[in-house]
């Protein structure tokens, strides 16, 4: 894990805006762990990763909290 981002409490489009911002600051290949509780986050982070080419390594759900591991594209 290279960076952690707590996006809990944030609503669309803020969680992915933050993911995009933080990932840009990271090195290619870097791993970011994001936690979010916006119900839209699951489908949105999947779409975002498909579209931006970043790798969604893992997406977990613990009750209402999602944890996503995103690897920055090289």
């Amino acid at each position, binding site marked *: 894990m290279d960076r952690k981002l707590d996006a809990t409490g*944030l*609503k669309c*489009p*803020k969680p992915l*805006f933050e993911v*995009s911002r933080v990932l840009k600051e990271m090195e290619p290949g870097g791993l970011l762990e994001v936690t979010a509780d916006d119900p839209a986050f699951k489908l949105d982070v999947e779409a975002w990763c498909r*579209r931006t080419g970043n790798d969604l390594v893992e997406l977990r759900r613990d009750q209402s909290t999602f944890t996503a591991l995103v690897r920055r594209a090289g």
Partner: protein
Amino acid sequence: MTVLTKERTLEERIEALETALHSTGLDSAATDPLAANRVCMVVFSGDLDKVLAALTMATGAAAMGTDVCLFFTFWATPVLRRAHSGHVDRPVIDRVLGRMLPRGTKGLKLSRMNMGGLGTAMIKRRMREKQFASCDELLEMARESGVRIRVCDMSMDLLGIRMDELIDYPGLEQCGVATFMEAALDSCVTLFV
């Protein structure tokens, strides 16, 4: 004997589709690799809910690495006014219009259930409680992520709004329909809000 049907490979099918598309002359967005990454939007409405929708889509698209350009026209033009803008040396009609139109995002109302301002105040309070991004926050995010904004020159003239009344936004410029159409023709998504 002639072969009427033949199993075609995916490449052959794509090639046939591309040839057909070329012949329509409508393929700029399909063949220009940059177009696939461009979104433009006409922001026409000055209603709070619709401006929120437009700005949410714009910042979302920018966060996905898309090049976004917003064209503010008609009722959306006053959304770009600064909260405090003087209006000296203006024709009377311009001053009256200036007073009636919202000054920036603060004066926007819901398109439905405004109820003399009560509905709008309630929705704004709920947005704060639920940590929704406000119009101002979304504009700040748009600025940060490089969303471009253009404003319709005709609307400004008609509504008596001048460039020096508008918010300080990088690269904010006046334009006409040709600028919008060029952007729309070069984009794969164009929305009207």
